[in-house]
């Protein structure tokens, strides 16, 4: 299996999570407010509890956690982006039980707010998702009815670019087979049957996130140079940003050797170093 280190999974209920937690070897790492899971590659998951508010709070909790871990691993020079996938069950008027849908839009019934996840994933049918406060028994629109996607979205987009926030719902009930027939066992089985789809969505997201992170993260050599600068001089927050951009520019213009030479010189302050780095570029 490809490494899915930058994926965050969000489930409402432990029965929705169970099969995926086993499949991705996710183990519990935090059992306090919300159950948070992680595997050895860095994939994370949270079980939020039912409803908009729980989904919103738990997603934010996982977002903060991922951010903290990212900060610890870096030099405060930007944290690697992560992708988010909300997985759960829902009701649909017509679709067969077990059908999977990626959200083409998310309508929060209570507020009327509508969001549009970017259609970056392929291989799964798209449908509108309606987040309701109470189970919808009438299925009035051609949409998947569930209770968490809008809350999940509201928090997840605070932590990443919106292309990386996706919702996958699996139909558990419809007009022919009402919500009363949904049992714990059925939920576990429905998710289990869709593990391949879930895995494929995660792989697609990971691939996109990799591209994003490769484009926006500094490479090892750049980070080393920045680290040595930060150890030698005091930098303000603004100066750190200036330094990062200068290192990016030297790298983009293929002047890395020159960058090393300049950084190895001795300066009286970070200001003087930044000035010298800028001056050299302006002479090019």
């Amino acid at each position, binding site marked *: 299996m490809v490494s899915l280190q930058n994926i965050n999974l969000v489930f409402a209920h432990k029965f929705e999570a169970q099969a995926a937690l086993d499949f991705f070897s996710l183990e519990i790492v935090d059992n306090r407010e919300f159950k948070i899971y992680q595997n050895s590659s860095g994939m994370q998951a949270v079980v939020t509890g039912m409803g908009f508010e729980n989904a919103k709070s738990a997603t934010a909790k996982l977002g903060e956690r991922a951010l903290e871990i990212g900060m610890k691993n870096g030099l405060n020079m930007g944290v690697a982006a992560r992708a988010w996938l909300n997985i759960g069950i829902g009701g649909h008027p017509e679709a067969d039980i077990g059908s999977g849908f990626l959200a*083409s*839009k998310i309508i929060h019934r209570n507020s009327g707010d*509508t969001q*549009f996840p*970017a*259609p*970056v994933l*392929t291989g799964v*049918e*798209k449908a*509108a998702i309606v987040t309701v406060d109470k189970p919808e028994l009438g299925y009035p629109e051609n949409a998947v009815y569930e209770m968490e996607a809008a809350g999940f979205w509201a928090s997840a*987009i605070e932590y990443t*670019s*919106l*292309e990386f926030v996706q919702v996958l719902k699996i139909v558990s009930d419809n007009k022919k087979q009402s919500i009363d027939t949904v049992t714990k066992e059925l939920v576990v089985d429905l998710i289990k049957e869709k593990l391949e789809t879930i895995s494929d969505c995660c792989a697609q997201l990971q691939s*996109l996130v990799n*591209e*994003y992170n490769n*484009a*926006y993260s500094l490479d090892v050599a750049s980070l080393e140079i920045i680290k040595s600068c930060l150890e030698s001089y005091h930098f303000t927050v603004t100066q750190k940003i200036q330094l990062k*951009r200068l290192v*990016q*520019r*030297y*790298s*983009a*213009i*293929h002047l890395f050797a020159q960058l090393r030479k300049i950084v190895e010189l001795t300066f009286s302050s970070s200001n003087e170093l930044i000035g010298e780095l800028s001056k050299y*570029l*302006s002479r*090019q």
Partner: protein
Amino acid sequence: MFSAIYIEDEVREHDRVKELLERFSSIPHIDCQRYGEVFNRKGQNFRIQKKSPALILAKKYGNLVLPSPDGYGFDGGKSYYFSHMLNCIYDCRYCFLQGMYRSANYVLFVNYEDFESQITESIKASDGPSIYYSGYDCDSLAFEPVSKFCDYFLPVFSIHTSAVLEIRTKSTQVRSLLDVKPLPNCIVAMSFTSDGASLRYEHKVPTIRKRIEVLQKLQQAGWLVALRFEPIIWDSNLLENYHKLFTEIFHRIDIDFLHSASIGEFRMPTSFHKNIVKLYPDEELFAREIQIDNGLVTLIDKEDSLRQLEQILLRYIKPEQYYRCA
């Protein structure tokens, strides 16, 4: 071709929309109230979206025909531009659209009839000849198989002979032009950069050779063509590379039937440049030294190459055929 089609409620029943939805029935169709809900949102990444853009079908309101920016085009009357589309199917790294819009999705404004009535009003209100540019916020021809832009707008300009339509493009989609009688007041203006710059910065764009072939075909069919050499991006072999390009083009193009040729340096508003730097921090072009003048970013031309380039171009064309794009 698109990852999805978003449809504004307002245009759901428009014939042009119905036809497109039927044609692209296998692509997800998603309803929205206004195109801005998808297009103008914060927190989007143009670069990632460019990999699988969606099409948004919408209605444009307000002023659909606007005065063109100073120095945008040639002399010949009052000039205007109109944008029936936002964004482009090509992916030119130097393009200002990347910094102008938050989304890489294509917006197609399907209310061509409203554009037509405002163009007609504008023509009637002009004392003398007037010029209308299409292709400022998109490449009009590149999307022709979907937009049918020429099918609709060429007949409009065939009625109004005092007005000139310039279609600015890098596309080779010219069937809709070759299938009809040429309009003496329509100019197909093809953009070029040097071969090296094209290979480096112009992704998904037809090759220079193909673009020249298309210009030749258009000229032979009786269409007026023009050449737009922009953006000029400085490099050590700039003059040599453009000399080569000019030779290649003017060997094939009939200069006597060339409407005009222009040169324009790389330039864009500071705010767009700032956005693009964030989008492409790893891109050499945006790591270069810049100068800012009146809110406009340009690259530094240390050797006055632009003037030298003009001198080379003027060896091939008459001075009255040339203008510098400001």
